[in-house]
């Protein structure tokens, strides 16, 4: 079995797993953990789309 993912799918999965761990280990209350996990996931997605567009526009 082999997984063939696009750049977006792979980066999305990476963001998801990393955000879960960062949320769990960083803050001290469950509420803060949830917020921080969602915040980091959002940052990953913004960076993903932002850098994607930059590369697209940079290529001309």
């Amino acid at each position, binding site marked *: *079995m*082999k*997984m*063939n*993912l696009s*750049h977006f799918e*792979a980066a999305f*999965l*990476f963001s998801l*797993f*990393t955000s*879960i*761990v*960062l949320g*769990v*280990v960083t803050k*001290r209350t469950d509420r803060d953990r949830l917020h921080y996990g969602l915040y980091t996931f959002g940052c990953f997605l913004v960076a993903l789309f932002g850098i994607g567009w930059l590369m697209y526009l940079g290529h001309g």
Partner: protein
Amino acid sequence: MTKEKQQKQPVPPLGAWLPAVALGWLIPGGGHFLLKRTGRGGLLLAAVTGMFVCGLLMRGAMFQPQSGDFLTVLINTGGFVGDVCSGVFYLLSVWLGYSQPDTAGHVHDYGTKFLVTAGLLNVLAMVDAYEIAIGRKE
């Protein structure tokens, strides 16, 4: 910085944190389970396992320490340490004969990064288990 802050904190006894950190290395989230933080342990286990399994399914390569120029040593040794930090997943995959050559292609490349990152995320989980075990964190 005040003198109180500059003073070194006493080193916590080994027995207080070593079992949690060692179990946390072997089984991601295991330290949290040992310290009765099952919810957080479950999330860590799911995230690290998911990352590692995706890396395997993408046929990522495992790093081996290599000699050579500084960058080669740094990348390969760092990558190897990252892989080993996945604990039982690394041991099982090596024991069961997983050996993927480093081939070109974005999927393989992502897979290699997923495998290393799984170990690095487990390091974060181990540090968290350490802080809980010594009472610095709830």
